[in-house]
């Protein structure tokens, strides 16, 4: 066992971490199978469960091969390219045909894909991956380590401008991916980063591996990738067709003969289509507008917790929220369980004003950081401490999913505390804006939607660090700290947390950072949304997550 594996073994023996947490952390450090068995045996959980392989619901009965799987998703509304894509429609389109080095299952345990083994160096600022042999590109040419190096150089190149730049900022720079030999590649990071394998997984969605001669814009012409399905036709209007990749490296997979993605402009037609049977899978279901699916006997809806959330941001550098007490007053005014019930019918986790979402293993629990609950009297008290008795603010936000309703609830809940909220709900394009006018980064009081990210670091870095505070002319890219909050102590703790591999130290650092964030509350985080996925009852083998990421290689239809 190497150091890290042994460390987890000790954690297991001491019972400080749950079996699930151990599984996840073991997968991140790339624990070998014997080490994993020892670790799990030590926590009294018996032998390693078969979390290797494609994951997915264990269905009774033999796999039935053949057929076409039809998916309904919202259109990416533009041409799809894995290097530059950023919306979920495009991401899912790519994931059918391309592979990552590793892939998380719905419990965030990392599974080998194009990489078979991985481990950190003596410090977690180098990571070495063993690349799977015998893989072929869909055009028949052999897949090599050179392709891996070229792919990562491409997405870390500032001139190309991949959306992955924000994920790799400060972690991996161009030119630091080293080909060690025909089977091994080493990443030399800019700083120690304990969760690095997540950054080469589906959670960094642009990190699919592409051929070294890949030309940007050629993905939709078809035939690019190592994945289970070969893209045949692409139309932004209609959708995408795929056929089975007969040379796929996954033993016996995919089970389907073909796949099809249908693009829709909005949610209601997809709901109707899956009810009517013209599509088999609705991979990313927004709760709003899909309630009919829960009571439909032909449809199974799976629910997985995620780190998708909304920031109720309050600018900490301006009146009135430059006083911490004013921000805390808003935080105490909200009835969080009520919001979860009212907005999602219970399908969300209550948030505690810090960015360590419950889904991340090792996040502080409510026994570490007590749950903040509604307390109107305290809110009033805090306001008077801040020297205001009546606060008049405008809440600016976007017309998107449940956010307008959330804004309404906030207005109602803040009123008894003496906070008078005026709502300004804008169309999404206006709220995001462009150039020097981007309301989501500038308004004193707003709500922004954030998609799920794979690690706490990915959630915190762009939104809560000092270096992520937007400049007045908004010229710094990737700076999305919309509360303009800067706490150097918090930054230091997070930096240490990201570089730390000792589980107990990590947990302590996380608790300290969470306490600071909860106390200062630059953004109220009231809930973490559960991701929903709907499939017709005859669909098997499709993993329920993580979040919307598509892994259809083991999918079959009864």
């Amino acid at each position, binding site marked *: 066992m190497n150091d890290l594996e042994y460390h987890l073994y000790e954690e297991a023996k001491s019972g400080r971490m749950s079996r699930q947490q151990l599984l996840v952390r073991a997968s991140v450090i790339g624990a070998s199978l014997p080490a994993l068995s020892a670790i799990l045996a030590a926590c009294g959980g018996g032998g390693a469960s078969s979390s290797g392989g494609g994951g997915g619901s264990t269905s009774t009965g033999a796999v039935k091969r053949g057929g076409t799987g039809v998916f309904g998703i919202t259109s990416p509304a533009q041409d799809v390219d894995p290097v530059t894509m950023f919306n979920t429609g495009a991401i899912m389109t790519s994931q059918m045909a391309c592979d990552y080095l590793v892939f998380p299952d719905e419990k965030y345990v990392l599974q080998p894909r194009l990489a078979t083994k991985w481990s950190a160096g003596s410090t977690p600022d180098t990571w070495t991956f063993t690349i799977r042999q015998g893989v072929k590109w869909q055009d028949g040419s052999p897949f090599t380590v050179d392709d891996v190096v070229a792919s990562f150089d491409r997405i870390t190149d500032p001139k190309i*401008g991949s959306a992955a730049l924000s994920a790799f900022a400060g972690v991996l720079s161009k030119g630091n991916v080293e080909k060690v030999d025909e089977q091994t590649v080493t990443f030399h990071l800019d700083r120690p980063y304990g969760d690095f394998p997540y950054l080469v997984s589906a959670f960094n969605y642009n990190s699919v591996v592409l051929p070294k001669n890949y030309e940007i814009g050629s993905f939709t012409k078809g035939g690019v990738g190592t994945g289970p399905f070969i893209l045949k036709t692409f139309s932004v209007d209609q959708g995408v067709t795929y056929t089975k990749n007969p040379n796929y490296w996954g033993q016996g997979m995919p089970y389907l003969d073909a796949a099809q993605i249908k693009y829709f*402009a909005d949610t209601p*037609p997809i709901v109707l289509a899956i009810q009517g049977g013209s599509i088999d899978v609705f991979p990313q279901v927004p709760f709003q507008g899909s309630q009919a699916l829960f009571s439909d006997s032909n449809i199974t809806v799976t629910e997985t917790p995620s780190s998708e959330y909304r920031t109720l941001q309050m600018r900490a550098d301006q009146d009135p929220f430059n006083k911490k007490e004013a921000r805390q007053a808003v935080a105490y005014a909200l009835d969080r369980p009520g919001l979860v019930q009212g907005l999602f019918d219970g399908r969300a986790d209550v948030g505690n004003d810090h960015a360590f979402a419950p889904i991340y293993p090792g996040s502080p629990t409510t026994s570490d950081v007590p749950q903040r609950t509604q307390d109107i009297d305290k809110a009033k008290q805090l306001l008077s401490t801040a020297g205001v008795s009546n606060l008049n603010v405008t809440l600016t936000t976007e017309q998107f999913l449940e956010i307008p309703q959330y804004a309404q609830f906030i207005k109602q809940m803040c009123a008894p505390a003496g906070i008078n909220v005026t709502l300004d709900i804008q169309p999404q394009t206006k709220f995001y804006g462009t150039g020097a006018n981007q309301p989501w980064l500038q308004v004193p009081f707003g709500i922004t939607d954030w998609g799920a990210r794979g690690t706490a670091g990915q959630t915190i870095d762009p939104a809560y660090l000092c270096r992520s505070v937007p400049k007045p002319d908004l010229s710094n890219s990737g700076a999305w700290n919309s509360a303009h909050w800067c706490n150097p102590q918090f930054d230091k703790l997070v930096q240490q947390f990201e570089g730390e591999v000792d589980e107990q130290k990590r947990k302590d650092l996380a608790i300290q950072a969470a306490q600071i964030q909860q106390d200062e509350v630059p953004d109220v985080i009231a809930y973490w949304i559960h991701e929903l996925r709907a499939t017709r009852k005859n669909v098997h083998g499709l993993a329920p997550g993580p979040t919307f990421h598509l892994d259809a290689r083991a999918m079959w239809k009864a």
Partner: protein
Amino acid sequence: MGRYLLRRLGLTLITLVLVSFAVFAAAEVLPGDVGRTILGPYASQQQVDQLNHQLGTDEPLVKRYVTWAGNFVRGDWGESPIQRVPVRPLVLERLKNSLILGAFALILIVPFSVALGVFSALNYGKALDRIISISGLSFVALPEFVVGVVVIVVFAVQLGWFPTTSQVPSADPVDIVRQCLLPCIPVMFVLFGYISRMARAGTIEALRSNYTRTAVLKGLPQRQVILRHVLRNSLLPTITVVSVQVGYLVGGLVVVETLFNYPGIGQLILTAATGHDLPVLEASVLMIALIYTASNLVADVVSALLNPRVRLAT
């Protein structure tokens, strides 16, 4: 007649030019920009500016308009910066799809509404007349997405007689009905009330006129009175109304197209407007304006044919 036609054609051309000015100007005021839409919210402002410069969207308005207009009339409609496909085939394809849907709706609903309108005028004041009028008005009041969803849930999901999403039909009439009937139902609800009321009002007025009384007193059978004398006059306003609806039928079916996932031009315009895809937006709006003015022209010609007073006036 010839001079009348020429005048109308001239006016049509001027209208189209003015429409193109208006769309170009309006697109300037839309929030957002192409570069940002293509690259997404996570790209740096520098990259967005660079892309905008590449696409030429930062040039002055007049220059862009003149370049675009010059190319357009020569048949070069450019390439969509967002979808990265040539604009002309895309817009024409979507236009064709919308025309199929619109034509189907028109063919089904116009004769039906006109017939019912005339019928209720003939039974003026009786129970049947009131039923037709009131139901016509109520149908207009129902929003398209409500009718659309109900229709899909009942006929497609529960009964399974029709598909839940509509594709462009092939030439086979059975397929046309299968794909187009459900999307047309919300549209027909909207059109029915309007057209039947116009037909009814026109017919009532024609029925009250002197020439009708003369024809009846002359001893002509009622059928002949209606077909030869009344209809020609009563339908004049109805024809105008129908031609106005053509604009809505071709470009305004955004809700229906979205609900049924039908690849029509209404949806294309919506996407192009939100994405700041100017070449597509311009071309689509202009094509709809063309169809609309053409249908107005046809309506005017039919009016003129039916009504000598129009064609002989100078």
